[in-house]
């Protein structure tokens, strides 16, 4: 008799082309806003910019700090592995530069601005759940020396990002 049991789940027939970007925030918008206002220790909240890929960027002179939005971490779920870009590596806007993995799935990190990485948050490599717990603060991912600061102008501010989430819903 079987020492193995039974295969019973089966394949999903989910449409494959549904964009992740279409996910509605699972937490109330007011909470997100409140959070970023209270957590921006050194920046004003309107200094946080967002990409359509659900990353955030804060800018200080020619330097940018990159992380993922609360919306993104909620949808990813419990993050278990982080692969960050190496310090000194260079990326162009839109290039894959790392990955985040949850129990459920893997997601690439897409570089939101062109530049050279000068710091990475090794604390999230050691404890990836920091990204879930504190996506806008302790959960930052890496810092870039920008090569084209004009690219920032193309990013959304917080209000625009929330509108984007809503519209995309």
């Amino acid at each position: 008799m079987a020492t193995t049991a039974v295969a019973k789940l089966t394949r999903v027939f989910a449409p494959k082309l549904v964009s992740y970007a279409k996910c509605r925030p699972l937490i109330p918008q007011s909470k997100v806003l409140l959070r970023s206002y209270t957590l921006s220790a050194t920046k004003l909240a309107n200094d946080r910019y967002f990409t359509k890929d659900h990353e955030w960027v804060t800018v200080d002179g020619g330097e940018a700090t990159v992380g993922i939005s609360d919306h993104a971490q909620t949808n990813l779920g419990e993050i278990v592995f982080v692969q960050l870009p190496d310090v000194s590596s260079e990326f162009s806007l839109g290039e894959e530069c790392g990955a985040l993995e949850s129990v459920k799935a893997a997601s690439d990190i897409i570089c939101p601005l062109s530049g050279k990485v000068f710091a990475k948050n090794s604390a999230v490599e050691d404890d990836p759940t920091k990204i879930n717990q504190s996506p806008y603060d302790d959960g930052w991912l890496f810092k870039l020396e920008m090569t084209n600061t004009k690219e920032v102008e193309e990013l959304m501010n917080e209000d625009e990002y929330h509108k984007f989430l809503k519209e995309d819903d």
Partner: protein
Amino acid sequence: MFSQRLALNRIHQLSKFASIIPEHVFSARTMAIQKKTCLYDFHVQNDGKMVNFAGFSMPVQYKGLSITDSHLHTRRNASIFDVSHMLQTKILGNDREEFFEKLTVSDVKNLAEGQGTLSLFTNEKGGIEDDLIVTKAAEGYLYVVSNAGCLEKDLEYMQKAAKNFRDQGKDVQVEVVKNGLLALQGPKMKDVLQPLIDCQLSELTFMRSVLTRVAGIDCRVTRCGYTGEDGVEISVAENQAAILAEKLLDNPLTRLAGLGARDTLRLEAGLCLYGNDMNGETTPVEAVLAWTIPKRRRLDGKFPGASIINRQLKEGATKKRVGFLSKGPPVREGTVILNEEGTEEIGKITSGCPSPSLKQNVSMGYIMKNHSKIGSKVRFLVRKKFVDGAIVKMPFVPMGYYHGEK
């Protein structure tokens, strides 16, 4: 990050399991054709995060419990899973056993009454069309449970075959059992169920099935599951399913669990997911499921694809399903497997995840037979980087099946 590119990548990873994309992103049109189980309202009331799975709106997890939490709860206590989306059928008629042996690899004739077994629908190429459990009910019929993703295919196949069989003057009917199906899984299952059930669980060993009552509700209870733990699946009238789920949930040892934990649990148990770990191109020998074909069936050779499968049983297959352990980035479906030196491609991963129990990555996949020895080292290619892994024996965690008092 989560660009189209990323989205595609990620959905690819999940396409054969449960999409993590919340249900509300699907268009109204898609939503309209999404089926609901009899427990849909129950899931929503209990804060289930609903996703599309095999055309059904199913909970991937419940609020307040991560997949890891839910997984570990099942390994330590007990969890309730809704598996009502699966196809339940009754095969009736005097020639039912002969009929079912024509479609599957099982020795139905020699199954004891009330005993079930894992079985396979095979095709003429020796490939696996679906896996299923067939139980020889003491009440004079066969009770069959097969995959939701193969629901239409399986039903059509059985009904067509039954018609052909009847045309030859035989007596067989295929009847859909329109019941809910609840799985209660975990080492504390018996502590939860025994006070509620009208039979002795000590007598209901692994893969045995009875018609009984739980909390006064008529149902069929089969000691089986898809987690590697001791557990049961309870087939119950649709309008009683939520009441029964509530009764089970009243016990503080139980929590609700969704498809997310179901997938990580079955992976740790080394169990195949149809569509990922086997399909119409995979033979039972390659999938290491030849144990489902008893000697009598190998000899009679009357199941589809028997000649090919029997030849593989004698001569061996060129590839084989094995399990892997690794550290670092999780190894998932589609990952290329290389030899230890990283110079030769020797296989492909079909399922993988970070293991909540082992805190390492577990995966399974098909590898060339001459590279398949337990203990062999391999390399995986994850995002263009090598990740070291080793072939290990499955299941990855000890099984908790109940085979009787020792």
